[in-house]
């Protein structure tokens, strides 16, 4: 199992290296913001830390840590995707509509 996960890690890392190349400068900020939203995937870990297989008892500290991490990760996910969309929506309108003065 452990080796399998390392294998997954290495493949995914190489994929990440290959995915990003020749990105036009105006997309750097949205790309950073969008990939930042993906790093909010920790929310899955945070949810699992409050779920069946991992919770031993209704331990207060577990609940505090878990709830806080769900909270922070959700901010990262929701805020990240929304802010990226807001940025990109501006590019689209700027391109499609002919400007009326």
């Amino acid at each position: 199992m452990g080796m399998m996960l390392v294998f997954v890690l290495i493949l995914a890392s190489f994929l990440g290296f290959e995915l990003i190349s020749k990105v036009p400068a105006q997309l750097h900020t949205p790309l950073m913001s969008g990939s930042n939203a993906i790093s909010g995937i920790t929310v899955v870990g945070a949810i699992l830390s409050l779920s069946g297989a991992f919770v031993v008892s209704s331990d207060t500290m577990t609940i505090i840590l878990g709830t806080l991490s769900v909270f922070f990760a959700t901010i990262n996910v929701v805020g990240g995707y929304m802010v990226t969309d807001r940025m990109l929506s501006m590019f689209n309108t700027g391109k499609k509509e002919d400007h009326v003065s």
Partner: protein
Amino acid sequence: MSEAIINGLYIISAIFFVFGLKMLGKADQARKGNLVSAVGMLIAIVTALVSQSVLEWQWIAIGMIAGSIVGAMAARLVAMTAMPEMVAIFNGFGGAASLLVGWSEYHRYTVTNTYMDADVLSLLIIILTIVIGGATFTGSLVAWGKLSGKLPSKAIQYPGQQFVNVLLVALIIGSAALFGPLRESLSIDSYLLVIATILVACILGITFVIPIGGGDMPVVISLLNSFSGMAACAAGFVISNNVLIVAGALVGSSGIILTNIMCKSMNRKLTNVLFSGFGASKSSAGGGFQGEANPVSVEDAYLMLEAASNVLVVPGYGMAVAQAQHAIQELADQLEANGTEVNFAVHPVAGRMPGHMNVLLAEANVPYEQLKEMDDVNPNIENVDIAIVIGANDVVNPAARTDETSPIYGMPVIDVDKARTVIVMKRSMKPGFAGIDNPLFFNDNTRMLFGDAKKSTQGLVAEFKG
């Protein structure tokens, strides 16, 4: 739900992330790409929610609802100009979440009294998650502070800086060793050790970012973004979860590449950015150029613009601060109505983040065709009648071409000094974000239009209308 279905769903969500990232890098598909990646996230979250018998569902609900509200509000309300610091702080929260996941995993060992029986590798990964997460959290907060002006943006340097960082890293390695392989010989409570490690990691994040100048924050945020991916990846190993590892690794490695691309567009090396204290090297600011600047009034600037046949607008962070993007677009309309050709030249790292200016100009409905890249305008810049520099400084500094002692020597700049006339809209003669003098302001063909960029621009528009 069976293990196979769960893993299958996680794989599907990972595929969405891969395609989403790929599309985000292409101008015409970027927005769809973001949506694709968001769907992947939704699949992963729903899968996590249904995969286990969720015991503390009310707490998960509270965390998610509160987090969604805060995240959505922040994303909605933030001004487009404050986008870079927003990304920095979201990134910091991601790091904090990873830190907490690692911590809560350790906490589980203490509750079940299995700490001494846990295998060394798992413990080391827990510490790694905590350390990367903690350093990302505080590092991002410092970056946010510098960008939003809550902390001084210049590089803060102190003697023995490298030594302090090395010491902190050594402390972390030491405590990781004590926490994992050497835990039998640990004389204090392991919980104390974990708390201490968290504190050291948080301090490391601060000492790592604080000596880096504000002008380099884009690179730092991109790097921290990569770190938060690695933190998520490490958290994935802690709980043996595929989707965390894949998504985290994707962000981690693509973040490194993006950081590298950004460094290249500034013609600098990453190590240089991180360890050289950019912008702090020049202690005697203002000593270099003591020439006479030529101020110009709004009326005179109007007369110059009215006679021009083509105008090149070069925006910088000052435009963002003054919220002048709409005013400048209005001015561009007036100029075009007057028969003047108007173009916008966007330096790849103008503003506080690459692409920052493009976002703002797009917000102001500047037509896409008028946005030119640096490499397209520089060869013909001698034919430009008037270059309007609005709130840009370092990206138009000719010292980058001519002065080998300048800290930005070698950085590609927009050569506005070669245009026939340059109008610089600026608040004062203060040096820019990087704290470097700009000889452009003292050139014979440069006119300084002092004052708030938005007010000056609106003044020009009024002259055209009047």
